[in-house]
């Protein structure tokens, strides 16, 4: 424990070393907006070209503007815009609103409201967000399963404030946000053996990237096993003696979203193991419930290194 505290102290000092220059930089009052190389795709629109200006929006939507001003995006757009599009403020996302303002809110022509009743195609709505956010984790949005099923950014994120966490999510947690559609997965997390998601130690995005990825199931790594190795690096090997179904896919035996069986196994051993092992003698014996082949850890009472063994005599995963 003393070592851990010592290490954490060193880590803390490092963190401060990183943070200090940022904080010292804060002494500069109101630095000028960052100059950017690119021009925004939207034209720099003078107010008379269909744009009303954010002040006009705030005249009627003051409560929403106040809420938005507290968000990170609100602070950037309203206080520290970095480019011409961000300087448009509200209209940078919602589009020119002069007609809307002149009509006393009667028309939304040329605007995107992002509300549930907004008939603007989802792809067009999302394009507004992607105009600034199509980087890093969102690089693979186009063509992703969520994009192709018309999921809107605003289905999961609450842009105008009142959202939860760093991602301004629609619901207090990622589980609840993803669980709006993935109800079955949300339910699985409540089963008796589960990873510590409900305890707040993991989230859906610990393994998945909902914005798109290069892998199946929106996994953050190239394969299922690479995702699992992120935390379970001891199972990465290579080992002298490999167990092929383990090597190929952890979910051959485990259900990572939760299970009614120990170790998140898809089925309790020995039945799980007996689905593939029909050699001779004890693996094929149906067994009774009170033998050492069945109780406690069942097959793993003896075959303890079932994920792979590096022992010269570990061929049967006993050592």
């Amino acid at each position, binding site marked *: 424990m003393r070592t851990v505290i010592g290490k954490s102290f060193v880590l803390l000092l490092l963190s401060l070393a990183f943070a200090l220059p940022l904080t010292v930089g804060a002494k500069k009052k*109101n630095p000028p907006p960052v100059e950017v190389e690119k021009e925004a795709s939207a034209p720099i629109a003078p107010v008379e070209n269909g744009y009303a200006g954010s002040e006009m929006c705030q005249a009627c939507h003051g409560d929403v503007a106040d809420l938005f001003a507290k968000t990170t995006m609100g602070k950037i757009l309203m206080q520290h815009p970095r480019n011409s599009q961000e300087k448009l403020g509200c209209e940078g996302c919602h589009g020119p609103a002069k007609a809307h303002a002149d009509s006393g809110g009667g028309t939304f022509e040329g605007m995107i409201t992002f509300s549930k009743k907004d008939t603007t195609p989802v792809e067009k709505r999302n394009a507004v967000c992607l105009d600034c956010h199509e980087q890093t984790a969102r690089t693979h949005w186009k063509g992703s399963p969520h994009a192709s099923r018309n999921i809107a950014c605003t289905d999961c994120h609450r842009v105008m404030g009142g959202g939860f966490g760093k991602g301004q999510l629609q619901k207090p947690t990622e589980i609840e946000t993803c669980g709006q559609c993935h109800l079955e997965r949300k339910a699985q997390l409540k089963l008796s053996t589960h990873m510590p998601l409900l305890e707040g130690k993991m989230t859906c995005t610990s393994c998945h990237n909902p914005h798109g990825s290069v892998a*199946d199931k929106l996994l953050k790594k190239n394969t299922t096993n690479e995702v699992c190795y992120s935390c379970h690096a001891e199972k990465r090997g290579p080992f002298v003696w490999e167990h092929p179904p383990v090597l190929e896919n952890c979910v051959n035996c485990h259900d990572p979203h939760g299970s009614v069986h120990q170790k998140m196994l898809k089925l309790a051993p020995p039945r799980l193991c007996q689905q593939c092992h029909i050699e001779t003698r004890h693996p094929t014996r149906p067994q009774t*419930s009170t033998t050492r082949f069945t109780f406690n850890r069942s097959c793993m009472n003896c075959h303890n290194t079932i994920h792979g063994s590096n022992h010269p005599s570990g061929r049967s995963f006993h050592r």
Partner: protein
Amino acid sequence: MTLLFLVPFFSLPWTLQAESSGGVSGHIEGGGRIFVVRPHRTDRGKFEEYRDYPKGGVLNKLFLQYESETPYRMELEVREPGEEDQSFLLRASKLGTVTFEFEWDQTPHVFSKASGSPYIETNRGVFDLNGEIQNRLQGAAAADRPSLLSDFLTPTPGIDLKNRWDGARFGMTWTPSSTWTLQSKYNFTQKDGSRPVGTTFYFTNQVELPEAIDQIIHDVDLSAEWNNRKGYVSMGYGFSAFVNNLDVLTWDNPLRATDAAGNPSRGRFVLPPDNIAHLATLSAGIHLPWKSFLRGTFSYGLRFQNDDFYPHTINTGINSALLALPRTGLQGAIHTRFGNIQWTGRPYQNLGVNFYYRIYNQNDDTPNVTFNGQVATDVNLVSEAVTRARFDYIKQTAGLDFSWHLAKMLDFKTGYEWEHWNRNRFHREVSTTTEHIPSMALDYKPYSWLWLRSSYSYAMHLIGTYNTFAHLSHTIGDEVDASNSDAQDVNLRKFDEANRRRHKGDISVFLTPNDQWSFTPVFSLIRNSYTDSTLGLQKELGWSAGGDVTWTPNDRVSFYANYMREEYDARQRSRYREPAAQMSNTTYDWVANNADIADTGSFSTEVVLKPKILKLHLGGDVMHAISRMRAVNPTTPAGGTAAQNTSATVENFPDIRDFIYHLEASLLYNIKERWSTKLAYVFEDYNTSNFQQEKIGVYNGGLDANSNTSIYLGAQIRDYVTHWIGITASYQFN
């Protein structure tokens, strides 16, 4: 730890505050927890599985944020400091330009608190027994050993089986311009503690131990991305090192004090070896005509492992030239190559097209290694040369799908995916498998309050030649056929290498008739048929049905509830095979029908009793799960000896049941503008019935006569009931 974070947080920004008009805001919440009923220490295995619930004073949360008119911000979030599951997050940023994060997080993992062991861990990973009992058992007649061991194990000192993961994470994102993003991340994970592990000396003498865990993982990720409106290019590098501070586990054999061939006094097994992984990634994408986007990604990975080999056995009574190690370590090297190319576009206004191709190649370049002899469980010399297997494979996936915007509120998607595996033909039974997966999806949104989503796919998994003896032949270097007692039955088709037909579908309805109500019923189904598997997994059927409902009749009342039923049924067929005469006795076939049924639900309601002053919250979760493992012999076993016929006869396993009830009620009272207090009551009831562990003790000779010289941990997961009352106060800064 808490102070380490708090002191700099307060000192740094506040020195700047005088020069800018910023300030610190946030909130702090703390109080006490009084257990009306607290589970007994030995019953807290499940209760404290991933969390710490101490009694007395607790600081639940502290959140501090420094902001000013400048774009600089700093945040500190502390959760449950001083507890086993504490976490700290420090974030400093210049808005839109640089973000730096440091996080410290602890996660306990309790396996059981109702365990015991007579072993003393003299050094980490070294488990010694009282030498006297070893001498007595060695000298005793076989018939007397069980009672001697039973007496010795009564009583047994209790131990906790738990470990803790401590993680530190540094992350930095720098956006020097609107086109560049640079990211760096370092993760440090330390796992410390124990977990249960089974060991054995051949068949009759099992010893379960609290395996010592002392492991560290270092992960570094660096990436740079250039992205403008025409496309992007990104590069990334990841490094991961696993360091196990313990190489082996050794333990005394309770039945022997001295070594001899066939009778070891100690056992030893190798713990997971250190390993290193590198992964370099290059990705690029470009916008093309037809509103299309073409992107490609290539990754190259290397994994190395070369821990020193330990000798075949710790048993000094076994000596043979066959046990000479061929080299000092595995020299393990895995090369992975991953490629992905995707084109997605919209050639027509209402038609979207998406094509992708992926290839993943895992290539084991470890030099061949052959062991001329082995020692089975430190007991016996096995004079058989065995060669390590290399399980290389290539997995390819290609897909094409079309999305039609058929009408204003109707979207239809159809596609086809092809998945192909090439495995090392020398070691897996099937070298090639191909899966064809046509699919379709329909999304219908006729009104803003109704959204119907459905999908269906059919998958046809086809295999090449099934070579039952592939692995065995190339491992032991002999020609193997069905007469070999180590060989699998020729009628077996392992489920991942079997012909399979799959139907999979789901339907969801999102109903929001007004701002007060929302209702989301869902249903999903999956059915797998393993068409040619005479033995092995034959059928699977899984379905789930349930839904969410929310009701907010006014701004003072809100209600939420959900329920889900999941069922999974599987049928597998096996055959008891006893060499030499009963290897193919079809009356020894047995069929297991396994079923899991789980019901989960929760509700939550909030009632504002007095606006801005008093709020009542009620919530609860429930989980009922039953696992049934039934089995039957289609034909009464006959043809062998009476003992063999009995061994081939199946019985149903007792049902495994798990129930969890969680109920909480709280009253929030806002005393003043900044001060509030909360009174909470929590009830939790966990009830489990699992034949595999509920009767397990340290000595299990009474349960199984063949285990009467074995020592277990008796690691039970026990029921618990708890009631507690929490009183917390919170203060809001600014």
